[in-house]
């Protein structure tokens, strides 16, 4: 049962269980006419469509900051190598940091099983028809994962370069993964995602010798959309470039935990 919301969308499953039922308490029967109320009038509301998501995201961010948890939201088109990258990253980091993973897919728990095989806890969210994770689902997933203080939390979003861009989950950074088999113009075709991300990982670089992919060009396009975007060339399967990525994670994680220490000191 949900304690935070009166929430919407159909059937979302977490580790196979329905997140919660769709109930339309707030829906009013369209045929009831309240006397004296059926004159046409205008109501100003001025509400941003994503305001609700943004509020949940702020709650998540607040929780994460309080516990020194560094959360990264991995986004990409399907098959660019998110799960492979996570598995390899976990292997490098799991002896030094507590790690947990939230997996978002429309169907199946294959990716969560791949993560659990490393020994790290993973929670699978199946969004059904939903094409992205939202901050509310992720908040519930965080509760269920029983996260450790000062840990590292990865979210693998649903493979989709469009919708996840608009949904803040409360993460420290969005990381967009683009594989070299996808074409150089992806950043221009899906600018919102490259605009929203702080890091771009160019994956499957081991395949470059077999392709005519232009690395300079893709980086130039990505920087048109987002001049501050940090780019790292990697191969999740061969391990090249992973050290730079891992170092980037470690320094972000250190900053996060230091914040908590400072906050504790100031409350003394």
């Amino acid at each position, binding site marked *: 049962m949900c304690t935070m919301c009166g929430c919407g969308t159909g059937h979302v499953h977490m580790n196979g269980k329905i997140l919660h039922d769709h109930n339309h308490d707030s829906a*009013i029967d369209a045929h009831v006419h309240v006397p004296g109320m059926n004159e046409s009038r205008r109501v100003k509301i001025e509400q941003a469509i994503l305001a*609700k998501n943004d509020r949940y995201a702020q709650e998540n961010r607040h929780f994460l900051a309080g516990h020194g948890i560094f959360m990264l939201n991995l986004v990409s088109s399907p098959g660019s190598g998110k799960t492979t990258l996570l598995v390899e990253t976990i292997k490098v980091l799991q002896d030094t940091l507590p790690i947990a993973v939230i997996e978002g897919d429309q169907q199946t728990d294959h990716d969560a099983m791949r993560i659990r095989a490393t020994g790290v806890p993973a929670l699978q969210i199946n969004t059904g028809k939903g094409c992205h994770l939202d901050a509310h689902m992720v908040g519930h997933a965080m509760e269920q994962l029983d996260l450790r203080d000062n840990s590292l939390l990865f979210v693998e979003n649903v493979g989709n370069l469009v919708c996840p861009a608009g949904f803040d989950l409360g993460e420290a950074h969005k990381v967009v993964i683009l594989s070299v088999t996808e074409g150089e113009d992806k950043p221009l075709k899906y600018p919102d995602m490259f605009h929203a991300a702080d890091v771009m990982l160019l994956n499957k670089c081991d395949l470059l010798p077999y392709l005519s992919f232009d690395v300079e060009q893709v980086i130039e396009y990505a920087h048109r*959309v987002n001049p501050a975007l940090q780019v790292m060339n990697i191969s999740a399967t061969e391990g090249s470039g992973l050290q730079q990525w891992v170092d980037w994670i470690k320094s972000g994680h250190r900053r996060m935990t230091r914040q908590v220490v400072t906050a504790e000191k100031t409350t003394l």
Partner: protein
Amino acid sequence: MALAENMLQIIEEEAAEQSFTQVSTVWMEVGRLSCVEKEALQFCFSAVTDGTIAQQAKLEIIDIEGWGRCMQCHCEMVLNTLYDACPSCGNYAIKVIAGDEMRIKELEVE
């Protein structure tokens, strides 16, 4: 789809607060730099509102022009995409100052 569902939720909450039982028009501002596809939104909106207080509602989309400010020369310009270059200095570092909104402005209700 999620956007349309969020819209319906906002409308239903408003209905409970302001006690109306029918919505005939929804005015919504959509910036040109937001990720909203207008036709797709019209379609999703009519799909999710079916059988609700907004099932008869007409969705009026108000188009908002994109505007940006160059981080280098500080001039302001109309932005058509997130990767336009500054027309006066050629720089790509441009901050979006308008055109990324998705908001419900007003409802006509009874």
